[in-house]
């Protein structure tokens, strides 16, 4: 079975994510990249779209940015975080979660898909650590929408 098929099945099995028809997954240099079907008309060789994840010896891994974009289609294994947990998820190695579950979880804060993390022993380990420290210094959701 190709890694792309394995990855697609993983998305469906773990999260109930079925990608829209116009979205293509393709393996390139040991990672799975995601892009629009229309990009296939571009002939010169190069790196397509961005990295969706990889299938390796450590199992299957989806990347945070990919989940941010397609996590809205998820129907299961979603973990709702509060603001403190959400900030910690982005900025730190892990966030404490009061749960005995384990496995990959899509982290959400209100309606916003933050990314993906691995839940183990009451800790949700973020995918973002290791790619450079992220920072969030503000909060969302004012009492009233702005007129712009």
């Amino acid at each position, binding site marked *: 079975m190709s890694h792309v098929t394995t990855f697609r099945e993983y998305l469906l099995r773990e999260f109930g994510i079925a990608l829209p028809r116009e979205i293509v997954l393709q393996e390139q240099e040991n990672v799975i990249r995601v*892009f629009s079907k*229309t990009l296939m008309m571009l002939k*010169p060789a190069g790196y*397509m*779209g961005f990295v969706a994840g990889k299938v390796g010896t450590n199992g299957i891994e989806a990347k945070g940015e990919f989940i*941010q*974009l397609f996590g809205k289609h998820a129907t299961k294994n979603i973990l709702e975080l509060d603001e403190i947990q959400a900030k910690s998820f982005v900025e730190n190695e892990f966030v404490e979660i009061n749960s005995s579950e384990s496995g990959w979880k899509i982290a959400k804060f209100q309606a916003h898909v933050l990314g993906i993390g691995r839940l183990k022993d009451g800790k949700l380990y973020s995918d973002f650590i290791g790619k450079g420290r992220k920072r969030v210094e*503000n909060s969302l959701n004012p009492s009233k929408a702005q007129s712009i």
Partner: protein
Amino acid sequence: MDEKQFHDYLSSFTDADKMLSAPVRDTIRINTLKISKARFAEITKISLEPTFYEYGLYAESEARLGATWEYFLGYMHTQSLSSMLPSLILNPAQSDLVLDIAASPGSKTSHLAMLMHNRGAILANEVNWERGSALFSNIARLGVLNTKVTVRDGTRLGINTYFTKALVDAPCSSLSQPYAYKKFTSDLAYEMSKTQKKMLFSAYDSLQEGGELVYSTCTYAKEENEEVVKLLLEKRPEATLIDPGIEFPHDSGLSEFGKEFRKTARIYPHHFSSEGFFMAKVKKG
């Protein structure tokens, strides 16, 4: 160049006092690949103010704009208002094959993708792997799906008659940036212009007949702006300057290069409190 020399230099083509005293304000671009403008207005606490471009907004925030939830989630990109114009002027359609020949860090690439609704195709080229990492990172954060990245020397791309549109946001002496004048010399402008000319010809030759390109820089030096475009018009007689096609405050290009340079645009900070820019739109055939 010292401060006085810079003032005198600017005075040769604009009101230097007015320009140097104008504030440069922070702006953001709402990334509609991930969120609608209406939804963004509901969720953000960043103080926003409209500009002439519906998705480009003056922004004020106690937090650094690059350290906000909105940025992390890819709902917006910190980008100067001037630098939104090249993509708007290029005006790509969903069916276009677009070349962005000097793409890092990806602000204009991702804007092109947004204007194309992630359809069509963009070849985002960057000569430097290190700068390329910012391009890859912004493409992923902003959810860009219609872009292929290549790491090649843009001055020698070697692709002929292929793209329908091209953006040449050329490396330049960055004279519009704070204190860049301290490093500016005519030799630097001359050296930059050699690369710019090669890059412009490379992009132009990659266009299909009837294709269009936008040439832009963030410098005021005519050697890197009008002079570069003038050479293309001389060497490629079928190339014509065309109107930008959108309304925005600007000065025309320098008249010493000919009447047709009225169609090019020079932006100074006093136009709309953004960095200086030069832009020219060229049609092939």
